[in-house]
């Protein structure tokens, strides 16, 4: 997001791109329709005004299109760097790094726990050398980088800061987003490493460091996506995500951090599922609910802090294995919902992701889907184009009310943290997932090509991306060799220092950056933290 452009257009109250829009027949398209009194009953207001039901900017996509940000990463840093450059050359406007599971949980590629998983769902990054390869030739002061990393988010941010310093670039110029949302890991995504309390401490260390030192960095992306993918309803997705956001703000209050500054740093992440109207309404409801929470519960006056800015990804769970080409249509509808709902950035899934990793061709189609919506459909011409439609306003209010009721239930059970430890949201999600599956089984929920109109029994004819099987052993050897050839003293001292810091209450970020610069690896630093914090044990 370009803050400078935004503030200019906010101050003038005019769209930063004043070109008139019209339909192909030549009918002028207003930026938005519906004055506050027209939408008065629902409190929807105008785009760019509290409670932001209609979008967080007055000019929405006329000011700036959403960021087209395809999640990508596989094999090695070198191969992923090539895919990044390809995507940028194709017109993608931001990067989104997918890390492999060992990196996400905090194991080096040569750790026995990593066997079979290296480079599979993302790229392995264990050291500053890997980070250097990953972003070779990519200007980090210009291209914003989103990193889907949670348990080891603090370490990966330390790698990135150390890389910026090595390049002679001030870390304060780094722009992008860290997922760094551990609560939803316990609830739905399951890459947590440490128990809940130290997990939350690391989240807050990253947040605090970013508030103080990284003005263009979003240190957390509070995610409903994985909650939805795990089977929740749209209402549960909103309620659980915002209850997590409340928990992080409460933790910031406990640390006596400036609350408005922290809330301004928040970004959110939602899924776009199949029901076009419920999804559009969901995004609007989430914005309104959050704006009210920020003002009413936390007494934050700053309207910037009340803006719910979010990334959207189309629903992986909606992709079918049968007749995979149908998924291109599903993705287009879901992406349209995200845009009509006012998303700030978007990842569109490739049609073959229920079968394996996507190919270059299907990834390009996914990106083209966004470009067609942006440049051909007219969906970006006006702000909140569906606002005021009776169905949309009705659904928006209904989702808001129901999500509020669920949040009240969580509060009554002692808040999000306590509820997670007792497994309450996990049970909600599992029950919803089972209900959805049974509905499909009974034919009450139609999945075209699967339980209706299907060519049953026919194996999908789809080319699948093949990862080179030789990459993992070569990678394991490379990481092991680097560690052998490294002068060990400095790294060992840094790890000792890290353990001391972990036992105290000090912010760990500076110690982690020093560790990276001393040559310590991801696995070593996460292992040292695990010695102090313990490993998460429990019901999965």
């Amino acid at each position, binding site marked *: 997001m370009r803050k400078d452009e935004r503030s200019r257009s906010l101050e003038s109250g005019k769209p930063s791109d004043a070109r008139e829009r019209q339909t192909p027949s030549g009918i002028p398209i207003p930026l938005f329709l519906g004055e506050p009194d027209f939408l008065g009953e629902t409190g929807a207001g105008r785009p760019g005004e509290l409670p932001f039901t209609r979008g967080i900017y007055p000019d929405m996509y006329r000011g700036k299109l959403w960021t087209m940000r395809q999640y990508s990463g596989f094999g090695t840093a070198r191969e992923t760097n090539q895919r990044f450059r390809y995507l940028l050359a194709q017109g993608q406007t931001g990067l989104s790094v997918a890390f492999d599971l060992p990196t996400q949980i905090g194991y080096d590629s040569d750790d026995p726990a990593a066997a079979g998983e290296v480079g599979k769902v993302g790229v392995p990054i264990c050291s500053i050398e890997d980070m250097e390869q990953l972003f070779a030739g990519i200007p980090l002061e210009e291209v914003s980088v989103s990193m889907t990393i949670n348990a080891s988010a603090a370490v990966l941010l330390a790698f990135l800061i150390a890389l910026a310093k090595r390049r002679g670039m001030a870390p304060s110029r780094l722009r992008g987003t860290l997922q760094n949302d551990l609560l939803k890991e316990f609830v739905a995504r399951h*890459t947590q490493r440490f128990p809940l309390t130290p997990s939350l401490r690391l989240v807050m260390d990253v947040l605090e460091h970013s508030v103080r030192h990284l003005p263009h960095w979003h240190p957390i992306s509070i995610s409903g996506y994985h909650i939805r993918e795990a089977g929740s309803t749209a209402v549960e997705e909103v309620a659980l995500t915002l209850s997590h956001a409340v928990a992080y703000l409460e933790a910031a209050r406990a640390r006596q951090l400036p609350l408005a500054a922290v809330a301004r740093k928040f970004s959110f992440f939602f899924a776009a599922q199949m029901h076009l109207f419920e999804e559009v309404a969901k995004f609007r409801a989430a914005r309104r609910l959050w704006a009210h929470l920020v003002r009413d519960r936390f007494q934050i006056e700053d309207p910037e802090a009340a803006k719910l800015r979010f990334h959207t990804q189309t629903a992986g769970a909606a992709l079918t294995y049968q007749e995979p080409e149908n998924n291109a249509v599903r993705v287009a509808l879901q992406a349209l919902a995200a845009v009509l709902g006012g998303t700030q950035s978007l990842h569109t899934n490739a049609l073959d992701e229920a079968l394996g990793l996507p190919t270059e061709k299907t990834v390009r189609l996914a990106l083209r889907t966004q470009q067609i919506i942006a440049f051909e459909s007219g969906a970006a011409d006006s702000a909140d184009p569906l606002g005021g439609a009776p169905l949309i306003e009705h659904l928006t209010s209904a989702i808001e009310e129901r999500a509020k009721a669920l949040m009240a239930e969580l509060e009554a059970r002692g808040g999000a943290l306590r509820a997670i430890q007792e497994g309450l949201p996990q049970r909600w999600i599992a029950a919803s997932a*089972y209900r959805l599956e049974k509905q499909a089984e009974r034919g009450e929920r139609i999945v075209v090509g699967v339980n209706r109109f299907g060519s049953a029994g026919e194996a999908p004819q789809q080319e699948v991306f093949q990862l080179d099987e030789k990459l993992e052993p070569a990678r394991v050897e490379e990481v092991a060799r680097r560690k052998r050839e490294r002068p060990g003293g400095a790294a060992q001292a840094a790890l000792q220092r890290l353990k001391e810091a972990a036992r105290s209450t000090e912010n760990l970020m500076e110690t982690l950056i020093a560790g990276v610069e001393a040559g310590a690896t991801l696995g070593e630093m996460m292992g040292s933290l695990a010695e102090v914090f313990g490993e998460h044990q429990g019901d999965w």
Partner: protein
Amino acid sequence: MDEKSSEKAARAGGSNQPPLRILLAKPGLDGHDRGLKVIIQALIDAGMEVIYTGMRIPSQAVILAAEQEDADAVGVSNHSGAFRELFREVAAGLQAAEAAGRRRRILFCGGIIPPGDIPTLKSWGYRGVFPPGTSLEAIIDFLKAEAAALEKEGRP
């Protein structure tokens, strides 16, 4: 022991056979457990007994658990692409146990599995391979049919 068996039979809806014992596991680091949790509930509703190992379990521990729990069937799930390594280890371990005189167990798997890999998995001993979109009914029918076939062979 007799008492426990009759208790199981009662739960299975009065049949004379004790309910099938199904061990479900997620080896490796993958955290996608939606499918498995749905299947757990469906199998319980179908009168089977389910033992779930949880996530991040080493392949060797899956084999050990199958032994200790005296499972009739072992199902493994993976969505991270690591199945080629992990599922091979589980299948090899169970085959080794069988070769050493242990009972045969029904082996099945599911998750994100490219169509081209299905023949390989079958050749490793996976009697059922269930990609996304498989109906719960299909899995339940598969387990019942396989169990009946084992029964004919003479269930220990």
